[in-house]
Structure formats: structure tokens, C-alpha cells
């Protein structure tokens, strides 16, 4: 390293509170105007907190205590001691602590203690990724080496050499693996793991919050199988989970483990003095709601800190963004002492050796700045830095705290700066810091009894051990399920048990990570035919249809043929100035309403049963009712609509009969989607430059949905044209979707939004045309609305619209019921999002661009939310 660098890294380096605070002051002072237009929206100060130490537990195995002492640990943080005590009592635990609070000792301590006491005892650690396993292994090995021969730790995953596996199975008493390996490699071969299962005392699940939605639902089933196998060998393992801060850690753990769980969320670790700054890039085009590039602003922030010699980590949300920022920052430091080598990138795709080197240099303080993806967010030890700059909201509050936790010195002050992008979630968070800093609103949900997931794991379970009559596996009726698997040829029922009777290895057919194992292979025919990659089934239909422009690694490919039956797409390299956006047609049929309630302030006290009754009656009453009414463009504007008080609005609604009130519902729906065409959209200008028709097979799925019914009478009473009303409904759908993703912490791909007609007949059939715009990024969403097919095909009139948010996974992954419970929050947040957005008439940050939702979409969406009494308008 050059001499100058050394100088910058040590002597000349203003360290600590003053310079961090100076930098923050500089950012704040340069920040323009009112919050919604941009600038710093919050500076949150977390004062340093002293550690809460307690004495080493008296019943800790002396050898373990000695090793801890040798490593300079003479007392424990209070939560570590508490975890030890509870684990020794035999409780299942979920430990919730922030980053760098000595979390791993919470589970390592009781486990090492029991492994040292009992040489036969075994423990199994589950980490969501291989990199984390590797990191843990290094740490544990150091510990184990000092304990002598008693603790033999091994990782067992896809990379474990074949010849090492046998000895791991026999000798390892602390086995580190991941759920995928447990599912496909360990459980189906449990007889080879006899020693482990006979003596399995502890199972550790780290990063529990990571297991939500589909992955979590799979994990719950893998654990059902694990417990079944352990029972066969006579063991009943105890579970210790660790989770980042979410709203319902104990609840999530209880649903995944299906056991009683004790929550431990008091944190005795010290905290350093820290600032959290929220920054919204200023609006440069108020009409379109366009803000300054968040990447450029992140670069500016990083430069402000780096220039003061503060060690800074910049988190970007994609590999591409990472590379862009590295390039920018290296450019900034080209002439600085130390040069561009002071800043490096870190992401998946770098060679392991290079990554290890960067990690080491970070720990040793030999790097000033690093730009990373979420690859550095979890567990990996890089020491602590002065500042974290988050280029874009990481998607969840939990993950934001984890990234921010990378900055934090024992001594001195650190800071984390969140630079918001223009995505709706980013905008909501940056404009509502109180939401972020308050009690975590994020919930992790799983649905282990999703029929498709459950059936797949039931097959695996039967492969592992015959399923006995009277056994329990989930909450659904096991006999019915086994009968089904018998009829479909997988099981054979005899003498009170179901046996696996198929040649296949069922675990191979189930991938825990992807929604479906039914992938399309992309074949590039540009030169010698080669496989370019794979795309999962749902995305394939919208991105790999014939004539689509498929984009991978920035390269464009023209899809020449889609072989639907063989699941192959043949593509050819092109250089195109447009991209394509599939138009899909979605039809939603409500099969059963599980719960329903009027969305009206006055009737909130009504019991669910009553409101349900009313809804049913209402349906009957209205059969053959005013469905044939043709909507007119009502021009009778009510002048004081905007200013009407809540009570006045309520009075107005009171006069409407109960079934004509707006209602929120959740239940079972049937979704038919078909890709019917596509549009060609020019890069940069987003002009619609052509279109085409497609006939792809219709996709059907049963799933669950949350929906909002807006009564015809209510909409008609609003002073807008019917086109405006439709636009408003669609605009509201977009905003609700963004807020739902926030509340249930799911991936945007897991949740679909659709608007359809509410028929008061049962079942109700709704039709709509929607643009599936989730091709890749926010960018495509921005462009999606142009030439909205509903407009192209003439106005569709909704007699009474339903806005659906449905689980995009057959059978549902358990998002609808929680959404129903959180309806108030959902609608209230949507109102805040739209109300506080600085744009004039809609932008990608709130309800979608004007091109998609029309001139008045935003206004109508707000009016609807007002009329149904959603939350309080934003301040």
C-alpha cells in the first residue's frame, strides 16, 4: 500500500463524533426545501448505551468457561445469560437482537456446553446461505479447537466432498448445513445419519426472519419431517432460532416450528452513538414526479464521508448498481491520496479468494470504502465501519437495520444514511420516518399447509418413513391427503400405514427456493447453440413469448420460438432500441369468502359474524338487481367533497343499505391469466412503437386473495367521470400493492394486483385487462401504463369494482388473512403514500405514472380512500 494511503488511513484521519456530525450537518445544510420535495427527511439519533453485563452462569461447564476466559470473555451480556438459562431449561427459543450484539453466543453457549458434557450429543445448525455457513464454521472451529477433541464441527452442503461425507455422518457432533441440503441430502438418507438423529439435542435456525412466504412454508414442512425422523430414532430436539427485528418473531417461529416458543428480545449488548439519516433526492420535474438519480446522490453522500477519511460501506440493491457506484467512487478518488484502490466492490460473482481478501482488508482497516450488495448484509465478519450509505431502500426494515448495523464503533460516533429511490416503498419510508422508527410493522408469514407445498413434503415424508394412520403432519386431514396420493399412484395403503410406492426420489422434484421447479431453458442460437439460462414458469410466459426482447446481463435477445411443451425458448442476439412488455389478461373468480367486513368507521365494532351475515343477505337481495344499469359520466360534482368531515361522509354512507358499503374481504379465488399480446416500447423515451397479439395457453390457479369492494353507489356519488373512476380504482390498486408488500414483507413477485368486477352472484366473476409490467425493474413499471389496453380497447365499465391483492402461488402462501387483519393499516398507509407524494397527478412513486392511471387517477384514488374512511390523511 502506498505511503499516502497509510497517512490517510491513520494520522490525517479525523475520527469520531465530530467529523461524522460535521458530515451530517453538511448534508443537512445542503438539503433543499420541504421534505416531500427532497432533502433530509429525518435525523434519528441513537445515543450510546452501556452494556448490561451479568456474571458467567455458575452451571456453565468449566472447560467452556475457561475457553471463554481465554478469549477475554469474563462476563456475559444479560441476554446471552438469559438465553443460556432458558435453553438449559429445555425451552425452544427465538432470540431477537440487532447486528453485532453477540447473537451467536446465545446459541453457541448452551450447545457447546452440552456437547462438552455429553460426547454423544449432536447439534444441527441451519443457515440460509452457504457463505454464512462457511463464516460460522471458521468461528466455531476456533472455539472448538480450544475445547479439544470434544466438539467436532463440519459443514455438510453441496460442496462437501463425497469422501468426507461418511466421516462427517459418523463423527461430527455439530453439523452445519442449510435447509435445502437437509431436505434433499440428509432426511431421505436418514439411516446413514443414525448417530445424528439418535442423539439430536439441538437444532439452530439462524436468520429466522429470512424464512417467510414460500421458503418459510417449505422450511416448516422440512422441520415437520425432521421431527418425524428424530422421533423414529427416539430424540426430541430443542430449537434455538435467531431473528432480526420484525413485528412477530415469536409468532413466525411458532408457525415454522409448530412448537411452543419463548421469545427473548431484551438486548444487553452495548450500542454505540449513532445517527440514522433519511435522504430523499430532490424533485427535478414536479409534473412527472421525477427526482434526482438516487445513485448520483448516494455517490455524493459516500464522497462526503470518504473525503473526511471515514470508513464507509455503500450498499446497493443490484449487482449493476454496485458496479456503477464503484466506478463513480474510484473516479472520485483518482487524484486523492491513496488513489482509487481505497474503494472496492464486493458482490456475488467475485471469486471467493478475492472476497476473503476484501473482508480481511476491511477488518484490518486497510480499505476506506467498499460498495456491496446484500452479500455483506448478513453475518459475514468485516468488523465495524464508521458509515453505511444505503443506495435505495433494501426492501424491508429488518434488512435496513442489518445494513445500518455495519456502521458502529465501540468508541465514537457512526452514521447510516438511507438514500431513497423513486420506488413507492422507498418514498413511503423516507417520507414517513416515524413508521420506520416506531414498532416494526413488518410481519413474517408462512403457510405450511399450502396444499401444493404440503403434498410435496408429504411425499418426501412417506419416502423417509411410512405414514402411520393417526399421525399428524400439518393441520389438514392427513387421511384425505394420503388417499389422494394413493389414488395418484405415490402411496400404497396397507395395515394402517401408507408406504411410498414410486421409483422417483421425491425430494429432487421440490426446490425450496423457487416457486416452481418447472423452468424454461433459454437456448441462444446466435452461434453454436448454447444454454443461456433458465427462467421460472410464470416469468417465462411474460418475458420469453415469441418476439419478446429478452434481456440478460445487459445483452438483448430476440425470442424466435417458444417451445411450450418442451419448456424451451430459442433466442438470437440482437441490438434493439426497444424492449417488450407483455399484456396479460387476468380473470379472478371468488370461490369462497372466508371473512368480510364493512369498511366504515361506524360499523367497525360489529362482530365478524354479523357483518358476514349481512353480506350474504345482501348478495341474495341484490341478485338480478341493478346490474344492467349503464353507468353515465356523472358530472354532478359535490363542491365541498374534499372538505367534508369524516362524520359527514359517514352520515352519507349510513343512508346506504349495508350491502352497498365498501368492504374488505379475504378468501379463496380462482385466477386465470393469459398473455394475450405485447407492446414494443422504446428505450429512454418509453414511446409505444408497436404491438402484437399472442396466443399462449391460459394459466389457472387456485389461491387466496384480499380484496376491497367499492360499491357502485359510493363511486357514483363521486364527482368524477366513469373513466376517471376506473383510473382511480386502478391507481389505488397500484398503491395498495406497494403498501401490502411492505406490511407482509414479501417479494414483489409473490403478490399480484388485479381489478375486476364484483358480481353479487356467487361466485363472482371479475374480468380485467392488466399489464404485467413486472418484467424486471421499477423502470419497466414506469413505462408499463402507456397505451393501457383497457383504454385501447375502449373504456370498460365497472359496475362495482373489486381490487384484488392475491398470492401469486397456487394455494396461497398465507398473505391474505394477515392483510385482512391489517386492512386498516394497509388502507391508511396507501392514503399516506398518495397524499404525501409530491407529484401532481401520479408518478411511479405512488399510484403509477400518469400515462397508466390517467390525469385524475391520483385524485380519485385519494377521494376513494377518503370516502371509505381510510386512516388519517398524511401530515
Amino acid at each position: 500500500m502506498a505511503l499516502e494511503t497509510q497517512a490517510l488511513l491513520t494520522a490525517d484521519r479525523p475520527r469520531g463524533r465530530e467529523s461524522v456530525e460535521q458530515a451530517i450537518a453538511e448534508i443537512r445544510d445542503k438539503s433543499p426545501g420541504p421534505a416531500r420535495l427532497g432533502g433530509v427527511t429525518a435525523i434519528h439519533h441513537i445515543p450510546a448505551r452501556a452494556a448490561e453485563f451479568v456474571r458467567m452462569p455458575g452451571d456453565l461447564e468449566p472447560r467452556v468457561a475457561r475457553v471463554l476466559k481465554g478469549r477475554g470473555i469474563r462476563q456475559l451480556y444479560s441476554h446471552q445469560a438469559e438465553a443460556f438459562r432458558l435453553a438449559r431449561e429445555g425451552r425452544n427459543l427465538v432470540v431477537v437482537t440487532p447486528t453485532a450484539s453477540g447473537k451467536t453466543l446465545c446459541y453457541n453457549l448452551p450447545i457447546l456446553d452440552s456437547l462438552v458434557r455429553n460426547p454423544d450429543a449432536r447439534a444441527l445448525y441451519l443457515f440460509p446461505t452457504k457463505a454464512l455457513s462457511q463464516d460460522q464454521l471458521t468461528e466455531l472451529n476456533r472455539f472448538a479447537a480450544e475445547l479439544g477433541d470434544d466438539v467436532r464441527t463440519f459443514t455438510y452442503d453441496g460442496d462437501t466432498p463425497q469422501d468426507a461425507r461418511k466421516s462427517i455422518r459418523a463423527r461430527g457432533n455439530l453439523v452445519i448445513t442449510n435447509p435445502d441440503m437437509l431436505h434433499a441430502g440428509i432426511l431421505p438418507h436418514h439411516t446413514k445419519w443414525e448417530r445424528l438423529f439418535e442423539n439430536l439435542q439441538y437444532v439452530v435456525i439462524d436468520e429466522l426472519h429470512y424464512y417467510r412466504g414460500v421458503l418459510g412454508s417449505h422450511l416448516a414442512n422440512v422441520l415437520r419431517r425432521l421431527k418425524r425422523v428424530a422421533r423414529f430414532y427416539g430424540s426430541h430436539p430443542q430449537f434455538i432460532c435467531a431473528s432480526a427485528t420484525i413485528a412477530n418473531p415469536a409468532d413466525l417461529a411458532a408457525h415454522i416450528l409448530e412448537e411452543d416458543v419463548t421469545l427473548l428480545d431484551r438486548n444487553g449488548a452495548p450500542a454505540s452513538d449513532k445517527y440514522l439519516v433519511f435522504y430523499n433526492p430532490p424533485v427535478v420535474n414536479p409534473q412527472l414526479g421525477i427526482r434526482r438519480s438516487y445513485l448520483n446522490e448516494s455517490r455524493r453522500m459516500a464522497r462526503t464521508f470518504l473525503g473526511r477519511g471515514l470508513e464507509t460501506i455503500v450498499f446497493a440493491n443490484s449487482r449493476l448498481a454496485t458496479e456503477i457506484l464503484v466506478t463513480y467512487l474510484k473516479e472520485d478518488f483518482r487524484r486523492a491520496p491513496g488513489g482509487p484502490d481505497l474503494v472496492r466492490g464486493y458482490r456475488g460473482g467475485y471469486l471467493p479468494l478475492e472476497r476473503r481478501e476484501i473482508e480481511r482488508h476491511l477488518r484490518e482497516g486497510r480499505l476506506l470504502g467498499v460498495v456491496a450488495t446484500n452479500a455483506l448484509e448478513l453475518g459475514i465478519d468485516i468488523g465495524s465501519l464508521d458509515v453505511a450509505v444505503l443506495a435505495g431502500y433494501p426492501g424491508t426494515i429488518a434488512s435496513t437495520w442489518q445494513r445500518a448495523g455495519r456502521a458502529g464503533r465501540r468508541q465514537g460516533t457512526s452514521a447510516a444514511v438511507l438514500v431513497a429511490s423513486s420506488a413507492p416503498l422507498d418514498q413511503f419510508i423516507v417520507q414517513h420516518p416515524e413508521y420506520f422508527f416506531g414498532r416494526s410493522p413488518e410481519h413474517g408469514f408462512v403457510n405450511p399447509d399450502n396444499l401444493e407445498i404440503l403434498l410435496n413434503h408429504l411425499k418426501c415424508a412417506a419416502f423417509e418413513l411410512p405414514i402411520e394412520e393417526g399421525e399428524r403432519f400439518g393441520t389438514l386431514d392427513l387421511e384425505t391427503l394420503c388417499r389422494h396420493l394413493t389414488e395418484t399412484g405415490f402411496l400404497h395403503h396397507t395395515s394402517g400405514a401408507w408406504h411410498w410406492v414410486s421409483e422417483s426420489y421425491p425430494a429432487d422434484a421440490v426446490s425450496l427456493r423457487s416457486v416452481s421447479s418447472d423452468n424454461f431453458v433459454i437456448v441462444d442460437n446466435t452461434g453454436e447453440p448454447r444454454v443461456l439460462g433458465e427462467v421460472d414458469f410464470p416469468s417465462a410466459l411474460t418475458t420469453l413469448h415469441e418476439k419478446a426482447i429478452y434481456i440478460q446481463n445487459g445483452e438483448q435477445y430476440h425470442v424466435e420460438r417458444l417451445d411450450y411443451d418442451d419448456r424451451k425458448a430459442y433466442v438470437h442476439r440482437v441490438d434493439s432500441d426497444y424492449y417488450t412488455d407483455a399484456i396479460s389478461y387476468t380473470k379472478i373468480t371468488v370461490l369462497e369468502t372466508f371473512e368480510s367486513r364493512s369498511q366504515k368507521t361506524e360499523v367497525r365494532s360489529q362482530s365478524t359474524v354479523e357483518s358476514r351475515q349481512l353480506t350474504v343477505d345482501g348478495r341474495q337481495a341484490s341478485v338480478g338487481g341493478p346490474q344492467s344499469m349503464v353507468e353515465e359520466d356523472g358530472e354532478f360534482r359535490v363542491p365541498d367533497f374534499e372538505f367534508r368531515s369524516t362524520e359527514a361522509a359517514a352520515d352519507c354512507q349510513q343512508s346506504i343499505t349495508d350491502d352497498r358499503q365498501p368492504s374488505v374481504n379475504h378468501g379463496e379465488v380462482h385466477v386465470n391469466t393469459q398473455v394475450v399480446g405485447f407492446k414494443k416500447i422504446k428505450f429512454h423515451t418509453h414511446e409505444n412503437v408497436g404491438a402484437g397479439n399472442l396466443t399462449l395457453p391460459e394459466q389457472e390457479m387456485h389461491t387466496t386473495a384480499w380484496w376491497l369492494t367499492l360499491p357502485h353507489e359510493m363511486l357514483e356519488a363521486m364527482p368524477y367521470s366513469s373513466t376517471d373512476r376506473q383510473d382511480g380504482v386502478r391507481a389505488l390498486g397500484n398503491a395498495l400493492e406497494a403498501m401490502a408488500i411492505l406490511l407482509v414483507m414479501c417479494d414483489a413477485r409473490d403478490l399480484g394486483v388485479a381489478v375486476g368486477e364484483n358480481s353479487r352472484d356467487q361466485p363472482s366473476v371479475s374480468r380485467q385487462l392488466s399489464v404485467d409490467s413486472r418484467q424486471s425493474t421499477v423502470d419497466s413499471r414506469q413505462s408499463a401504463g402507456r397505451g393501457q389496453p383497457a383504454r385501447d380497447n375502449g373504456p370498460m365499465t365497472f359496475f362495482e369494482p373489486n381490487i384484488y391483492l392475491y398470492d401469486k402461488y397456487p394455494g396461497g402462501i398465507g398473505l391474505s388473512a394477515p392483510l385482512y387483519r391489517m386492512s386498516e393499516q394497509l388502507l391508511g398507509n396507501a392514503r399516506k403514500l398518495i397524499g404525501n407524494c409530491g407529484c401532481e397527478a401520479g408518478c411511479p412513486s405512488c399510484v403509477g405514472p400518469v400515462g397508466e392511471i390517467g390525469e385524475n387517477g391520483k385524485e380519485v384514488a385519494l377521494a376513494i380512500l377518503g370516502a371509505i374512511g381510510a386512516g388519517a390523511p398524511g401530515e
Partner: protein
Amino acid sequence: MNLEEKLRQLRKASEKSSADRELERQLEWLRQRDQSVRPLPAQRVPCGIEQYVDGSVQANRLGEYFVARQVLPFGRPYGRLRVGDVSVSDLSALEIFLGGQFLAGQRGGDALPDPSELIYLDTETTGLAGGTGTCAFLIGVGAIEGSDFVVRQFFLRDYPEERAVLAALADLLAGYKGLVTFNGKTFDVPLLETRFRLARQRPPFGRMIHLDLLHPARQLWKLRLESCRLTHLEAEILGVGRSGDVDGADIPGIYFDYLRSGDARGLQPVFYHNALDIVTLAALTSELARIIRTESARGVDVAQGEIDAAKVGTPGESMPGLDLFSLSRIFERAGDRARAATVCRRALDSGLPDSLEPRALWHLATQHRRSGEFEQAAEIWLEITRRETDYFLDALEQLAIHAEHRQRDAAAALQFTERALGWIGAKAGVPPRDGSATDWQAWSKLERRRELERFRHRLDRLKRKTSPPISPPLL
């Protein structure tokens, strides 16, 4: 109970049934969607296994099971052999395969038990996937009893009989010291061990000497035969023709159909297939032993210069050259250099394909070199250098070493070295050893450079030796 409570209960009850109906409806929908499902065979009148296979229901402490028993008298012909050959043949020649790698989990004791103490085993399973969900539904074993070869086949009429079958099998195996299988080390034995563990019984294999015939068979016949599958060996080596056999891939399906329908008709060929596999396994074992025994006797005779075909009693024609070469490699691996050399010489004499001849010569020379017979080795190396084959450079190098260090003839060594260097320089286009053209570039860069350096190094040293010390350097 008041009305409200009653109503609530009523609602609860109806909800449950509606949930059940809903589950049924979804399952029905899944059934329709998953069209890959094989249609179930029509329910037929159950026709038990007893009606199709000769055997009886037995019982032990764990329940009933079905066992088929077939007795093959020694006199019965089996291809080119007779069943009785199994009992009289001296299997000790096979001990050559019981060195380290063939004796998984065994320490010491590399003596193969007497033929009467061996049991031959083969299973028919519900699949090849392995893991806990694959089951051996038919376990066939064969052994000598008096003057018969008896095949017993334990059959699961249904899954619950597995415990009794495994116990019966373990009881039977207890009377034998050695186990012979075909691919049993990888497949049958681990699978059965899993079944024993699942049935909470102790696997009986630990104390047995296990000879897996797949590996010896491959070593001996791989060069000549396109496949070393058991049925192929049976036809090629034993001259047995099967008829009415069933394709192995269909077997799991046949058993599943039986489980569902109760009709055992389809299983008859499966029993036949399994029984034949066991008899073939036994016959192949004795044939393999006979070949090795015969050839090793002949090998020693050749070495001693007392060829007497009548004495070793050759049954019919002599062995094909390819097999002889394979056999010489078997002797070589077992450390029997004298036999390896004689058998290899015979392989060469009986004529080998051009592609193999240099390799055989090379191995022959190596045996001589290791036995200290350097002059014989050198002759062969010279023979190799007459043609520019894969072993050309290696032979020249050996010759150079031989000349320099043993014959102390630096000038001759220099000659060989210069010839090698000349060849490397001239023949840049010679393909690498594996013959693939694509590897040539890589080879020419790495391998050739390494060889070049080796020879150059040798050249420098030899030049220093041969040149008078005062001469100026030639290069």
C-alpha cells in the same frame, strides 16, 4: 345450551365439512392438472403369488412371509457349464481380488471361504434412487446344499412382511462366511442395510467377506466386451441364452401394479429374472476363478519353459488376446510380476489391436524393469521405438536412462536423447495420448514443454559427460 351456542356449533360443524369439501375439490383439481399420473390398473380378482410361483408361506417371530425355493441339480447344464461346476471349482484364485480395495470394511482375512460357505445374493427393488424410500421386495440368495444348488427368493407380499423377511434373511446368512454379489457394494448391500435399520434390526453383513464380482468382471472383460452388465456377461462368457426375461427398468412398475391389484401374474418373470441372475452370478464366479487359475498355472509354466497344455487342461480354445492383456494387468495390480509378464507376452503373441500393442509392450517392459530384468526390458523399449506411437518418447527416455546409468554408455544415451528432441521438434502435430484433437494445443503447450525440458536437461548433462572438459560449449 342456548340458541346462540347451538348455532355457533352448527356453524362450526358446517365449516369443517365445507373445509373438507374444499380440500377434496382442490385435490380433484390437482388430479386433473397432474396428467403425468399413471392410470391405475383395473381392479382384478386377487390372484396371489402362490398361484404363479413355486413356494410357500413361512413364519418366524416377526410374522409371515413368502419364500420361493428352486433346486438345481449339479448335473443340469448351464450354458457351456454345468451347475455342479460351482461346487467343485477351486475359488482360491479369486483371492487376487480380495486385496484392500475389494474388501470394504474387512481387516486381514483375505482367504475366500470354501464354495459351500458362500452365498450369492441379488435383489429386485422398487427403484434405483436409493435412500430410505427404495425397498427390496424380492431378495434372492443361492447356495450349495448337498449335491444341489438351491435358490431361495424371499418376497414381500406386502410391505408389512418386510420385517419377517429381513429376519429370515439374517438367519439364513448367519450360516455363511462369504457373500457374492454383482454391484452389491454400491447398491444391494447399502440398500439392505438401510432396510434393516428401518426395521430396527441389525444388518448381518458386517462379519461377512464380500466379493463384488462387478469389479473383477470389469477388469477382465472391459476391453473386449461392450458391456459388463450381468446378462451380457451371461451370454458372452457363459453362453446362456435367456428367454422370457423382463426388462429391469419395468420391474418396479410390475411390483407396484401387483401391490395395487393383488394380481401376482406379472411377477412370475421377475422371479425368473432374479433366479437366473443368481445362478449366473454363481456360474460366473466359478468361471472367473477357473480362468485365472488356468492362466496363472500356464503363466508359471511359460516362465519355467515347460509348456504343457495337457497338464493344465485347457477346456477348448485359448483366451482372446484382449482378455490376456486385461489379466496381465490384474496380476500386475496384485504385484505378481512374473505372471503379469508371461501373460502379457502371450497377449502380444496372440495378436493385439494396433492401438493396444504399444501399451502392452510398455507394460511388459515395466514388469521386466521392476523384476530387474533390464536387458529384456531394453529390448522391448527398442521395439517400441520402431514405431512412433504414444509410448515412443517414454521408451526413448527409458533407453537413455538405461544406457546412461546401467550400461554407462553416455554416447548411446546422448543418441536416444537427441532422437527424442528431434522428434519433439519435428512432430509438433502429434496428438496427445488420449487422441483428442482439441487437447492438442493444451498438450503442446504444457506437456510438450515439460518433456522438452526433461530431455534438454538430460542432453545438457550427457553433453557435459561426453565432451572433454576443455572444449568450448557447443551451443
